[in-house]
């Protein structure tokens, strides 16, 4: 670990050293539960509805292409794709409502912790982390060991991008679903705006958030490959977690809240079932990622070709 530069997060250096991990894990609860069951289920439904929305929406955006026409035929025509798209949209909006409720609860209960440690708000340290990573990417320095708290810069960036994106998609989607109602209060050009934004926003969501960002960080980044289990299994081995997010670990030890997030590893039978499900989800995710990536390459070539 000598070559790995540590302590680039200044705040971390001033902290008292946390107790060894083996000591912290009490009564067989050796795993760190990063996301609650509620959060994991919301994530699951977002994952399913997002994929469905993309698969039923993209052929409409590229309706002049042969692949779009074949695919639309395969899923039962534009009429049924529209029904499925709206059904998936209802699931997505339900997830958004769940998340809004969750944020409201965090805001009310956190009492000042919103901006504090473990925050989702980007700060100067995130900029330093990104700079260190880019330095490593271009070969100007060795690989940094980011002293992360709860969220890394790439997770914060994605959170805000996805929040802005889902807001735009919900609003424009509602206008396109009920154009007559929109036209009662707003000028007709708003429907034109909604079309442009829904279509452009979909490509952004799929290309940036999914292909280049979320899928990459959750599945293909070397530390996570082939899948980051935090969102799936509920519990990560404490050593692993403490290594990846030392600041959150140390903070929880200091505050005495580590106990809240410790869970026992799952039993052997459940682990076997989980492994099967895990491979199915990972396989599907990597397959979709490959498909979406090819698609983005194709879109880029279309775009370059248009000059």
């Amino acid at each position, binding site marked *: 670990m000598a070559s790995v530069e540590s302590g680039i997060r200044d705040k971390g250096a001033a902290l008292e050293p946390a107790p060894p991990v083996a000591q912290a894990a009490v009564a067989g609860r050796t795993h760190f539960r990063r996301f609650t069951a509620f959060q994991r289920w919301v994530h699951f439904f977002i994952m399913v509805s997002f994929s469905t929305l993309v698969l039923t929406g993209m*052929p*409409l*955006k590229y*309706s*002049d292409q042969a692949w*779009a*026409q074949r695919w*639309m*035929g395969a899923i039962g*025509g*534009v*009429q049924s794709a529209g029904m499925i798209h709206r059904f998936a949209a209802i699931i997505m909006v339900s997830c958004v409502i769940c998340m809004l409720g969750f944020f409201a609860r965090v805001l009310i209960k956190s009492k000042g912790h919103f901006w504090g440690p473990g925050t989702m708000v980007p700060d100067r340290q995130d900029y330093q982390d990104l700079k260190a*990573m*880019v330095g*490593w*990417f*271009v070969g100007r320095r060795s*690989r940094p060991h980011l002293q992360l708290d709860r969220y890394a810069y*790439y997770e914060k960036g994605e959170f805000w991008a996805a929040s802005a994106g889902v807001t735009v998609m919900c609003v424009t989607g509602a206008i*396109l679903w009920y*154009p*007559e*109602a*929109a*036209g*009662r*209060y*707003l*000028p*007709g*050009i708003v*429907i*034109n*705006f909604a*079309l*442009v*934004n829904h279509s*452009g*926003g979909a*490509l*952004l969501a799929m*290309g*940036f958030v999914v*292909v*280049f*960002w979320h899928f*990459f960080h959750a599945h*293909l*980044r*070397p*530390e996570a*490959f082939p899948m980051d289990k935090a969102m799936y299994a509920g519990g990560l081995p404490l050593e692993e977690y403490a290594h990846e997010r030392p600041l959150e670990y140390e903070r929880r030890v200091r505050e005495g809240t580590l106990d809240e997030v410790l869970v026992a590893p799952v039993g052997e039978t459940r682990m076997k079932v989980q492994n099967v499900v895990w491979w199915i989800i990972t396989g599907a995710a990597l397959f979709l990622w490959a498909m979406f990536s090819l698609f*983005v390459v194709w879109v*880029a070539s279309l*775009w370059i070709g248009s000059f």
Partner: protein
Amino acid sequence: MNLRAFLGTSLAMALLTVIVLAAPAGAVEFSLAHGANGRCLDCHAEPDLGTIVVNGERKSLTVDETMWHDSAHSRLDCTACHAGFQPREHTAEETAGWYEQAKLTACSDCHADEFTMYSGSFHGDLVMGENDKRAPSCADCHGSHGIVSPTSPAFRAAVPGMCGRCHGDKESTYLDTYHGKSQTLGGMTTAVCTDCHGSHSILPQSDPASTISSENVAGTCGKCHEHASTKFASFLVHVDRSTPKSSLWVWLMEMSHSVLIGVLFVFGGLHCFLYFYRGLREGLYSRG
């Protein structure tokens, strides 16, 4: 046999002959003419019959027999439209002016209402009032030997391309709307050109009687979109997103999306690719 019986029988037979020959004259002519259709096709089903130049346009003299049999007019005689043509090599007298007739006035015998509407329309006025050869008459939209019902899915699906032969810019902007995209993907419920603009009685937007005039456009949208308001109807259907000339605001929004997508794709792509590349080079994926 007496004279009265002889005269009576003769008269009855003569009457019967006249009745048989004269009374069902239409039916008899119909069957004869159908025989004549067969005789027309003796020559005109030949694939290499040659071509003829009409109004500077090269037309094939061959009639696709299958297409004809599948068409809505397959029970009509050829001469119903090609009036006066004889089943032999045609003389100049027969063919003089036949094209205009078959294309336009031939239809009005049966479709008088449509013809009247068409006569008062913008297209009809161009053709008949100003003798504009480019403007469409019946056959330009409906075809000739392959006429199908205008309510059939095949006809509806063909409408945008049909209008696009002259109004190409309108076709491409239509195909960029949800109506057009759905239509391209085989959806049968969204509007095609004729649903908004009308068909036989098309009038320019500036004419108050037009389906898309400012007085009527909300009602036209309202045929499908219940509670369509004037504001709703001010939606820009034929907007070209690639140029500020069409709609400055839509173009600006489109451009800002393109820039955002371009910047984020380049940034995200590089971040992701370089992370992957460094990870591979430093053997971070082989930790088992």
